[in-house]
């Protein structure tokens, strides 16, 4: 059976390679891909949208409708993960665990016992063994602001340089994930609760689809950003450029929040306590 599989894969693979023989040469200026649609984008992007980065213009304007659905795919992935994994009812335990932050001693308080005062010296933890490392925490705290600034730059600078909402959103999400790893899930949830994350990722897709719907209300086709000119007080071409920025911000927010919710759900198997 293994050999049969190998032979089948080998034959199909060779056929695939044979199929590529007639491909146009690498970077061939006369190939159909570089003569049919691309010249229009190369010549007209600046004139049509006043965006210097052609890739961004194609992604978010000429084919912006695809990109909206790519964002919707990410949104669906977030909901799917929540739908499948999230445990809506929390299991009640008989005891609670607290850590004295200064000494690192863990207290176990049985049901009915007196809870420690909610002062800063005590923090609630989920497992008997919750790692606590000053070096990692401090490094994380030091590095996270820089990651976030860079992420915002990538989102905002999408029209001029490589980047945009997806990349920037992932970087921004990574900063929150790093916070959750270097501290613990409980403190990450204190900073950015599940509801806030859900709010952000719906907000992101609202911004994108809402911009499109606004264009219909202003009398143009769906996602025709030039219609925004009247409310942004600019000319239609600049309006396209601003429209791209608006949807990129939406994508960035949605992607960031979905990364965070995926991490929260996967790492704790949907229980939202310290997992792993």
């Amino acid at each position, binding site marked *: 059976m293994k050999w049969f599989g190998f032979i089948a894969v080998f034959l199909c693979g060779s056929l695939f390679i044979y199929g590529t*023989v*007639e491909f146009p040469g690498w970077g061939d200026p006369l190939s159909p891909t570089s003569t049919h*649609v691309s010249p229009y984008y190369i010549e007209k992007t600046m004139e049509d949208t006043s965006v210097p980065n052609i890739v961004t213009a194609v992604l978010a304007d000429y084919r912006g*409708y695809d990109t909206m659905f790519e964002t919707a795919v990410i949104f*669906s992935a977030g909901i799917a993960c929540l*739908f*499948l994994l999230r445990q809506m009812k929390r299991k009640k335990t008989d005891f609670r665990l607290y850590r004295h932050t200064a000494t690192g001693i863990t207290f176990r308080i049985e049901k009915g016992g007196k809870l420690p005062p909610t002062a800063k010296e005590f923090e609630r933890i989920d497992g008997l063994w919750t790692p606590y490392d000053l070096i990692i925490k401090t490094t994380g705290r030091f590095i996270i602001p820089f990651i976030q600034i860079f992420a915002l730059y990538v989102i905002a600078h999408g029209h001029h340089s490589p980047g945009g909402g997806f990349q920037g959103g992932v970087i921004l999400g990574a900063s929150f994930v790093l916070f959750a790893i270097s501290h613990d899930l409980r403190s990450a949830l204190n900073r950015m609760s599940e509801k806030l994350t859900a709010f952000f990722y719906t907000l992101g897709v609202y911004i994108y689809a*809402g911009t499109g719907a606004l264009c219909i209300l202003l009398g143009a*086709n769906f996602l025709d950003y030039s219609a925004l000119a009247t409310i942004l007080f600019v000319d239609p071409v600049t309006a396209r450029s601003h429209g791209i920025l608006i949807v990129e911000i939406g994508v960035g927010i949605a992607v960031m929040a979905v990364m965070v919710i995926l991490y929260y759900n996967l790492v704790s198997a949907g229980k939202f306590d310290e997992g792993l």
Partner: protein
Amino acid sequence: MSQHFPAFIIVIPLIAAFFIFTAGWLKRTYCFYIAAVALAISLFSSFGLLLQVLQNKVVVYHFGGWSPPWGIAYRVDYLNGIVLVVSAAIAFLNLIATKKSVEKEFIERVGPFYALYVLFVTGTMGIVVTGDAFNLYVLLEIASLTGYALIGMGTEHAALASLNYVFMGTIGASFYLLGIGYLYIATGSLNMFDIASILPNIFQSNVVLFAFVICLTGLFIKMALFPMHTWLPNAYTYSPSPAISLIAPLTTKVMVYVMIRILLSVFTPSFSFKSMAVNTSFVWLAVIAIVVGSILALSQQSLKRMLSYVMIAEIGYMVGGFWLANRAGITGAILHIINDAAMTLCVFLVAGNILYRVPGDSFDNLKGLFRKMPFSMGAFVVGALSIIGVPPTCGFFSKWYLITGGIAAGHYGFVAALLFSSLVNVVLFFRIFEIGYFEPFGDLHISGSMDEEEKTFDDAPLGMLVPLMIVAAGLIALGIYTDTLVTKVIQFAIPGGIS
């Protein structure tokens, strides 16, 4: 406003999905109503579009104001106009019919469930309405992803079945994407009709040949044609019933539509049918699918599982009918997309109703059901007769066209397979009628006790029955108005060159 209908069909459910998700956090009862309103608007717009198509032939909508091939365009003609109306109607009716069972099964997760439900409808309708080959892939991703999630919440082995579906579905979608990539290399365009205008000059190219083979392989996996069907039975058996009565009628049928669209509108009939000379082999593949699907259905012991194998056989009907490459065969295939979607909805809704009242759907659990749930089982009889192909239900007419096409093409193997499958369907469904009607009421039912009162009438709630009755009546109506459907719509969906 009516010029925006193509956008409304997709965009309103999409935005509604976001609202539903938000409402799930605030007040759960709103979710259903938002979904219902969105799908009603979608149904209304697709109906309006079909009327526009009947008047002006083709409706084109440019997203972002960019004309193709630079931007993305939606294009509605006779072929997808009718499929759109049917899918929208199915999604809406199923939403209404499954309200109670969603409340029963997903009380905590109503928000995410309805959001995924509406996103699935968005993806499926988008696949049907789009005129851009890559946009189709993106929407396919949405429809598949939400489908996996909905199936994964089912009983027993649902997670494993869904994982299996994820693997097979992803392979299928990747193949489709690769095929589109090959087409892009060969033509430099992604718009279906633009590709079609460039392709005739380069039909001899190997790249086009490979694009054809790869696209088709991907679509065959997605539509579960026989050797690639393995993901389907488990996924459909274990999935939650409100989800499956949405997914089963739409997914595979829409993929058959995509095959017809890609082969007729992108590759054009002269390439698909004449240059390739693969018609007969594909019809034989369909024959095998029909025969094997029917035989495997015979050996099943539970209702949903049996129905999933019946569906595998039905996919064979449509694929075979299309590859007969004559007018009657293709008419039969398109008509069967509509009819099969409607009858699958009917029988899976009944399965959902049964599971609402009875703990399982194995044949033992069906004993005495005609007494307990006469209305649901009555609708089941209509659905079953339609699948068997008894006039005046709609199943008869599409089968008639398919058989006529088979005889016209001289492909008697296909005709024999259709008749064989109909006979097997008779056995399959009359066995269930017999169990439900004559076998004594078992003690497996949820009520447990054998009191005389317990055995009597206990059908599903009215909210589930009324939509089911509408669907069952629709099966007969579709049958009676077949002639109108074919002469007004379907005959224009087939390009002129096919006799």
